[in-house]
């Protein structure tokens, strides 16, 4: 081969020392690739959060790969699978939780499905309208890790760590309140209803409200809560009372609270303190009456217009209210009388006193013996009586007024019966008295003295007039009487002429054959005929009134 001249002519290659390694350096590349891949895998595995399962009643709105788990509106995981539980009764949602949130997965953590909620007071979960529902999460306090959870169906009370205080209210019914219903303080939105539930005995509703800081310190131990739902229109003896908080509460309902103005020593209420939710402001603001004295009143008149809850006033100051309106019957005489039960709160009387006096009397009123003696003295010595009064002339609402009637018949107050009877006076009597006294007052104002003086003057004038009249009469005798005699003679002559004239008249006009008489008779018969035809016409018109308009129509021949 090497002897081939062509090949021998080919140039000889230069010699390079052998430095080649047995293995190519190119193997670095797959090693690097492997390292990178391992790095990714390691990072993935290390950053892998826990996979948890949550059991829900239904997977409404939950989609694998699209539904997120959010805590404080931050995505902490994603639903990876949704499947039915083994018993096919519920739904098991598998979610991958971010590593950063792995520590939150403790056994009392809560999961629920967040759906958009649109209410009049606002829209929450608006983003769920676009992104779909998501699974809400609330961290628990436990330290025990868990991977299996049971989702709750009702979102828990979420305050999101916002500063504020929760309180409990118990109410007879929920009214139009709901979760998110506003809580107002002096018409300022300060909180909301966060939960409600039926009391365990089913006899009331317990609402939990959250009052935001710093307003929560205005919730004091004396605070009164009332349902500010809608419009509170009450027609009472006090007149028409319309109260509302805001347009939102008008539509959606709400709760308002306030401390009664007379409340003293205000202490901020403790968290979770329980309050009563009153039906309306008036009820709420009523004081806690430690002393309530019941009386029964028997009226001798109608109690129409008096309703339960009508005020009882003492000189116009409300001191109590009507608790009962009914009748009482005396079986022996079958005599029925209206019976009105009232309750009087002596502390309200105290509250209306100036502070100095109030302090003085409040202690005295606390002791029932002193109080009873005081009231008895008022009734038996000063004439304290109950009376029906009309509060509003328009509505006819009535109320019970307590007042002093010193002239009223003596009455006794018997404290030994269970419900003492407070004597009453008929309500019309004082009205009549007032009218009479006003008449007397007017009479008193009449100037009788002046009238007497005037009368005396008038009588003097009359005397003078009578004297003048006597002079005139004397004058009459002397001058008029003779002239009168002559006149009478003349008159007699005149009468004779008149008699003659009447005789001739009889012959010409009145006599039977007088021409005037004949003419009169024919005129009379004409008149009779005219009257007859008028009657015929009237008869006809009566039967055919339309003839007045249409004229007489041809009458069909009588059958």
């Amino acid at each position, binding site marked *: 081969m090497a002897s081939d001249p062509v090949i021998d002519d080919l140039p*000889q290659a230069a010699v390079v020392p052998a430095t080649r390694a047995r293995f190519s350096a190119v*193997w670095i590349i797959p090693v690097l690739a492997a390292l990178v891949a391992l790095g990714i895998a390691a990072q993935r595995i290390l950053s892998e959060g826990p996979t948890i399962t949550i059991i829900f009643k239904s997977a409404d709105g939950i989609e694998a790969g699209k539904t997120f788990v959010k805590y404080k509106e931050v995505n902490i995981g994603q639903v990876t699978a949704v499947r039915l539980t083994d018993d096919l009764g519920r739904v098991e949602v598998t979610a991958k939780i971010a590593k950063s949130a792995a520590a939150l997965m403790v056994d009392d953590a809560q999961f629920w499905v967040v759906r958009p909620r649109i209410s009049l007071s606002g829209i929450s979960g608006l983003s769920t309208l676009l992104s779909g529902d998501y699974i809400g999460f609330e961290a628990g306090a436990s330290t025990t890790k868990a991977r299996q959870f049971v989702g709750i169906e009702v979102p828990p009370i979420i305050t999101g760590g916002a500063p504020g205080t929760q309180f409990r209210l118990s109410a007879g019914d929920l009214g139009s309140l709901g979760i998110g219903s506003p809580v107002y303080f002096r018409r300022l939105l300060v909180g909301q209803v966060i939960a409600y539930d039926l009391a365990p005995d089913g006899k009331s509703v317990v609402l939990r409200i959250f009052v935001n800081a710093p307003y929560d310190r205005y919730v004091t131990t004396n605070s009164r809560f009332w349902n500010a739902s809608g419009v509170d229109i009450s027609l009472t003896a006090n007149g028409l009372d319309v109260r509302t908080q805001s347009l939102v509460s008008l539509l959606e309902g709400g709760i308002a609270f306030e401390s009664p103005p007379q409340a003293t020593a205000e202490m901020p209420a403790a968290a979770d303190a329980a309050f009563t939710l009153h039906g309306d402001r008036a009820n709420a603001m009523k004081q806690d009456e430690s002393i309530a004295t019941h009386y029964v009143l028997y009226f001798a008149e109608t109690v129409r217009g008096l309703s339960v809850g009508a005020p009882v006033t003492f000189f116009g100051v409300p001191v109590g209210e009507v608790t009962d309106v009914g009748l009482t019957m005396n079986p022996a005489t079958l005599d029925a009388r209206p019976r009105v039960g009232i309750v009087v709160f002596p502390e309200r009387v105290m509250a209306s006193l100036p502070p100095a006096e109030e302090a003085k009397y409040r202690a005295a009123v606390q002791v029932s013996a002193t109080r009873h003696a005081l009231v008895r003295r008022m009734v038996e010595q000063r004439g304290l009586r109950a009376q029906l009064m009309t509060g509003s002339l328009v509505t006819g609402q009535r109320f019970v007024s307590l007042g002093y009637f010193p002239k009223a018949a003596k009455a006794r107050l018997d404290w030994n019966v269970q419900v003492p009877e407070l004597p009453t006076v008929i309500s019309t009597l004082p009205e009549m008295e007032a009218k009479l006294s006003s008449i007397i007052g007017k009479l008193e104002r009449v100037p009788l003295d002046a009238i007497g003086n005037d009368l005396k003057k008038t009588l003097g004038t009359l005397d003078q007039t009578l004297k003048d009249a006597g002079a005139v009469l004397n004058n009459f005798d002397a001058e008029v009487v003779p002239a009168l005699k002559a006149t009478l003679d003349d008159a007699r002559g005149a009468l004779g002429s008149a008699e003659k004239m009447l005789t001739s008249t009889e012959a010409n006009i009145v006599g039977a054959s007088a021409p005037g008489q004949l003419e009169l008779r024919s005129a009379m018969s004409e008149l009779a005929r005219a009257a007859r035809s008028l009657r015929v016409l009237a008869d006809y018109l009566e039967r055919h009134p339309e003839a007045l308009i249409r004229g007489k129509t041809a009458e069909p021949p009588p059958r």
Partner: protein
Amino acid sequence: MTSGDAIGGMQAGLLSCHCCGLLSRPAAPAHPGQCPRCGERLEWRREHAIQRTWAFLIAAAILYVPANLLPVLTTNTLVSSQSDTIMSGIVFLYATGSWPLALIVLVASVMIPLGKIVALAFVLVSVQRRSAVNNRQRTRLYRTVEFIGRWSMLDVFVDTFVVALVQLSPLMAVDPGPGVVYFMGVVVLTMFAAQAFDPRLIWDAAASRKADRGV
């Protein structure tokens, strides 16, 4: 006379330069030396061809895993954020009715890189086993792999285009995912692997067998 029967340069004691194609005699059979014309280092066959091809191929195969597992695109809209891997993109395209597009992406992004890796591995194994059958087919396979390699970058191009165009922040934004880098690595490494291979090795087996038969 089939191509298999031709006398190779190695049998004739000659070698050609990879760069300028000059046929020359080696300086010494073990160390052929440099090309007298262009100075390129002369090799009987591409140095460590099989080893280098395997290395690139293995690296490509490793990167193929994260390329397919990691998202290549992250679509951020106002309310949601969605990451798509190559496969989930194909599934999405298919599910929304664009099956021709899904097919193109499937072929270009999944089947071709995988096919290249498998094809090269097959060629390498057959060379190492000194297989002498279907030499032409294997050579054609190799040529196809080499030719088709560049088209696998389609996915990367689409990805970069979409990322560059869809930046309607905050309404919608598309961000590249880490998967695209690994995918690019797969494409580049398979191209390197194809280049590192010396198709003459396919024929060497046939020649050596013939020599073994004592021709």
